[in-house]
């Protein structure tokens, strides 16, 4: 309570999209923050801390996602998660499976 929700839009860059490994990395990173994390794709809202939920987005390359964070560390959470999606996961070499 009392925390505003902050949002940020990110685009999935990697040609393989958010498959199992990136979804795992994303959910783990999200889980490090106290804030509630929601990922939105075309109006569908899922829990960003759940790998199963993130996988249901089937986010392919070019997909626009909205990240929402609500809580005391919301800004830091969005910063870290946006960097993960737009920079770290865009590096195919790291996660190409």
């Amino acid at each position, binding site marked *: 309570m009392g925390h505003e929700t902050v949002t940020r839009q990110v685009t999935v860059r990697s*040609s*393989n*999209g*958010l*498959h*199992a*490994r990136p979804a*795992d990395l994303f959910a783990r990173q999200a889980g490090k923050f106290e804030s509630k994390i929601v990922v939105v794709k075309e109006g569908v809202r899922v829990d960003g801390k759940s*790998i*199963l*939920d993130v*996988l*249901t*987005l*089937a*986010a*392919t*390359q070019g997909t626009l996602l909205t990240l929402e964070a609500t809580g005391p560390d919301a800004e830091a959470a969005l910063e870290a998660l946006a960097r993960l999606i737009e920079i770290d996961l865009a590096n195919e070499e790291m*996660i190409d*499976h």
Partner: protein
Amino acid sequence: MKFADFVSEGAIRADLSATDKPSVIRELTAALAAAGAIGADDMEGIVKAIMKREELGSTGIGRGVAVPHTKHPSVDRLVGTVGVSAEGLDFNSLDGEKVQLFFLLISPPDRPGDHLRALENISRQLRDDTFCRFLKQSKTPEDIWQLLAEADNNQFVS
């Protein structure tokens, strides 16, 4: 993407005998080879590739489910199978739980979208407790095939 679009009916196993990660991957890959979904000559290479992927991080995604997978140039479309272990086995899952349900996927290297859509379908259905429970209780490949067909007809999630 529906289960019927990628699950090879003849490769479904309701009574997995494997008790560890390498042997369950081998058992399910052999089932795909026996069903003709992959070439027998490609089996060893596919098993190795799937094990290599597991080294990056377990595909045991929680809730007693694992999705071991790889890309392999020998397949020209996404193929997969489903296996159930009554006892469950240690798969180094992300949540530390034993795994009872296996969805093994092999996709052509140039079709990442299909792989994602299969993962989407599997994870969406698995969020439903009833589907998970029924699948774990399946005793025959026919039971599993029937459940997958019901899931394809949206009988578990809307």
